[in-house]
């Protein structure tokens, strides 16, 4: 049978795009290479009885309209609160920020009264910024080089919205887009650990340091993250992040979409500049009116297609697009909970995120290693223990702990990511945790170490970049992924992109998938 649309890749964006196309009555087929759906938003029982959100581990920016329109809660998605971030310090103290603003204020006051006051102002300002930035996420990025009046109007519209902001909001907006996280925070705060742990969010998925301009705007994400409309909260997904993907898949199926796993695409079929379908690794050919790729541009255009069928300037752009995976993931099966010297015992602090970002220097040193082709000897880490909130993930009394680790450069200067390097990296991670929770070593039953190379091989993310390409200024908005092709369309007629490599980028957000579907439905009739 012939489909209206084939979606390559069953990650959360591919599934979201499929769901929206099916919802509009299109006949849709999703093809996933792996045996499970979800891409990087996946839950797997890596060790018997221990279920992990293998890659992406928190839900933050999932668009509320998607949750609503696809009715995800009814399809089994349940978001559980992940309250706060605890940052152990090298002097034995800690910084523990929670969602309760006043609590956090009191906690910050322990470190600096001035900062406690600034924190109110900062919070207000960020929420304003979030309001300005949110509509942009659902927007089709206009092409500033084209004379197409619609695009120009869009730009003018943004200009007008900018003009109508209050003056100091304008200032913040400009600064967020242009400054480094540390420089931006320096204006508000004096406490080093506070700035270090806040700026950490600015470097995730990039190959930049916290002092590099362009890292500030990600600070916004923490204020745009929404759970059931509540500003600022980050969350875990019951059953792991895979449950989000599965809920989206269930919604898509309910709308009539077909979804196949273990169906790896080998080639995108096109005839004189027009996509006609795909060929699978097993030789099957499936035809459709539209092909939508949720995998990254490297796979889409350089692996599944023949360069010669594409315009040279586009190919150049695709090759220039930067991935540079800079992070790894370590998943631990624990016999017991880590005991942090700065805050001993089992407490609510273990239910939130635990950030190993004790100082700005620590963050910079971690980056310095990576710049010269080594993984950080003392890496930055963001850790969660979801089994405390969702016991179904581990056997009774046991726990799973997920450690996001940066920096781990995809390209090592001496050597490659072999087993020896992987274990050395894993050891560096454990040692870094042990500095603050010495008992961790005795509690590890199993450990899974994912290097950028593992992430590339297992999840098809080029160079192991978790966002399908660096989130840097020159690769955002109308520049993502390739200048002139930021509107989900490609030089090939009827071939579209809907992955994190398109605006507005990575994270379990779903916006690229939804935006792409909107664009496709506009153009492709039944």
């Amino acid at each position: 049978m012939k489909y209206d649309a084939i979606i390559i890749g069953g990650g959360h964006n591919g599934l979201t795009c499929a769901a929206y196309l099916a919802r509009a009555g299109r006949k849709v087929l999703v093809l996933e290479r792996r045996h499970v759906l979800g891409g990087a938003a996946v839950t797997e029982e890596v060790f018997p009885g221990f279920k992990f959100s293998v890659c992406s581990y928190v839900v933050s920016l999932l668009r509320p309209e998607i949750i609503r329109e696809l009715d995800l809660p009814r399809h089994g998605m349940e978001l559980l609160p992940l309250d706060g971030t605890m940052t152990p310090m090298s002097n034995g103290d800690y910084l523990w920020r929670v969602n309760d603003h006043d609590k956090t204020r009191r906690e910050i006051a322990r470190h600096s009264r001035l900062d406690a006051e600034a924190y109110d102002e900062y919070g207000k300002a960020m929420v304003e910024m979030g309001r300005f930035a949110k509509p942009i996420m659902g927007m089709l990025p206009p092409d500033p080089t084209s004379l197409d009046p619609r695009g120009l109007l869009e730009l003018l519209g943004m200009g007008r919205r900018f003009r109508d902001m209050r003056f100091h909001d304008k200032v913040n907006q400009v600064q967020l887009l242009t400054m480094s996280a540390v420089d931006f925070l320096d204006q508000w705060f004096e406490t080093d650990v506070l700035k270090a742990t806040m700026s950490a969010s600015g470097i995730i998925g990039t190959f930049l340091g916290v002092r590099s301009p362009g890292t500030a705007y990600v600070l916004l994400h923490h204020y745009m993250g929404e759970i059931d409309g509540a500003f600022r909260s980050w969350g875990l997904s019951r059953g792991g992040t895979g449950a989000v993907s599965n809920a989206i898949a269930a919604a898509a199926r309910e709308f009539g979409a077909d979804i196949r796993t273990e169906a790896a695409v080998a080639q995108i079929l096109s005839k004189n500049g027009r996509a006609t379908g795909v060929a699978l690794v097993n030789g099957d050919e499936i035809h459709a009116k539209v092909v939508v790729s949720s995998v990254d541009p490297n796979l889409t255009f350089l692996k599944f297609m023949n360069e010669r069928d594409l315009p040279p300037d586009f190919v150049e752009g695709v090759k220039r697009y930067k991935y540079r995976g800079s992070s790894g993931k370590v998943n631990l099966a624990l016999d017991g909970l880590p005991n942090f010297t700065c805050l001993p015992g089992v407490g609510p602090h273990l239910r939130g995120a635990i950030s190993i970002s004790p100082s700005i220097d620590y963050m910079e040193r971690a980056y310095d290693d990576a710049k010269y082709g080594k993984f950080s000897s003392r890496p930055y880490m963001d850790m969660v223990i979801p089994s405390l909130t969702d016991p179904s993930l581990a056997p009774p009394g046991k726990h799973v702990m997920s450690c996001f680790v940066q920096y781990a450069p995809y390209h090592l200067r001496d050597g490659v990511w072999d087993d020896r390097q992987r274990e050395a990296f894993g050891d560096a991670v454990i040692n870094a945790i042990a500095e603050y929770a010495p008992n961790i070593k005795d509690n590890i039953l199993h450990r899974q170490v994912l290097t950028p190379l593992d992430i590339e091989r297992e999840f098809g993310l080029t160079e192991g970049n978790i966002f399908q390409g660096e989130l840097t200024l020159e690769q955002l908005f109308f520049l993502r992924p390739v200048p002139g092709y930021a509107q989900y369309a490609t030089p090939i007629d009827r071939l579209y992109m809907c992955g994190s490599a398109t605006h507005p980028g990575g994270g379990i957000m779903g916006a690229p998938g939804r935006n792409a579907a909107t664009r496709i439905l506009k153009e492709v009739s039944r």
Partner: protein
Amino acid sequence: MSGSARYDAVVIGGGVNGLTCAAKLGKAGVRTVLVEQRDQVGGCAAESEIAPGFRVPTLAHATAPVRRDVVEDLQLYLHGLTFLDSAIDVSSLSPDGRALTLWSNPSRTAEGLGAWSSRDALAWPAFHQTLGRLGGLIGTLFQSAPPSIDTPHARDLFSLMHTLSAFRGLPKADQWRLLRWGPMAVADLVGESVENELLRATVAADGIFGAMLGPWSAGSGLQLLLAAANRSLAWPGGHVVAGGPVVFAQALRRAAERHGVEIRTAAAVTRIEVNDDRAVGVTLAGGEHIQARAVVSGVDPKRTFLSLCEADHLPPEFSWRIKNYRSRGTLAKVNFALSSLPSFAGATREMLAGRVRLAPDLDYLERAFDHAKYGRYSSQPWIEFTVPSLSDPSLAPTGAHVLSAYAQFAPYQLRDTTWDAERDPLGAIVTAMLEQYAPGFSSAIVAREVLTPLDLERGWGLTGGQIFHGELALDQFFAMRPLLGFGDHRTPIRGLFLCSSGSHPGTGLTGGSGANAATVVARELA
């Protein structure tokens, strides 16, 4: 009261921009007095005798270069300003004793590059021309004050439209390049364009000169584009001022005096007098008052507002923002009196008469920056030096020479030590570096002068020792220089204007900021 003023305008600071502004005001018939704290005008365009018979360009050893409209407006060629028709833009020495030269003629550069990389020999002319085109476009923004953010004046918008149409006039590929390159890391920018590491470092150095950025810091691409913009506006007769930057300053002084400007040296301003929210003059160290209808500050924004103005004359938010204006100096200057011409392996006399860079590769530049992040100066700084006595023998006794060297990174803020303690150790490091490239160098030293960022602040009033009167960053550029909302040389105090490098375009010794400010001030006083 302002009616009784003897002067229409008082200009604070006799640096290149103060002089340019004063001269242009005088030409416009504005009764102007300029006050300079030092006993000679010129600011960073200075010359001093470091040993009997040895004169060196004290700070800047090259202009940025001088802007064509400044030379023409003020007919500086009638006041002693001449240019050397030097064919060399800049050279780089490699540790293996070879030299690489960037000629002002790109095809001649390409010829030389053949010995290093045939690919780069091919790529260079195109890259050079692209930089030229993009620089030319940005240059169109340099010749007038940026429009006000809130109430743009038709005139300003017109100049913006001019730039916009120029943007549309660029080849599409260039339009996209411009959007990508600005926020990019200069290391990526050159990495995309050329392959030879020495060439990459030579070009990338322009992106980090005087900045608190490494080549891998995003946003360093901007400064490279700004340098290109300066070149596009340069006096066509040549980029190198015969006799050094001080001659530029002297020509400006003569032009100013010819237009009736009164110039007073050894006259330090202690306070800007404000009377009901309007600047009415200045008070000098001796207690003397100078009344004027307008006060134009050629000193950097932080010094202008934080030490010359009384806080209660400024809105609190403005003061807060100006405190956060980043001006972290990173450049040190080392001057040498030499008994003979050192023999730099691979360098011709023509190269040594121009600017020569010592930085073998991008990592070298980045490592030099790493130290600065932790409040230390580079153990191996990157150096740009010149031997001005080659083109102007009068600077040194017969057969003897002077060598002028910039050394980066030398951060103003040192950790656990002071510049008074580190001045000589830094000098020793720079000497040792030069000795590496020119064996026997140290034995030829007659005298050595080391100027740290602290000395730049003490002696020349540059806050933080920042040579550009504030870092050239994405968020401190164009309409945001020094602060968003005050990019048009105006300030919260009526009648107080900025004409220093801390106002747009503010890219070094071009006279640009002074010239633009003069237009605004003259219009205001008319």
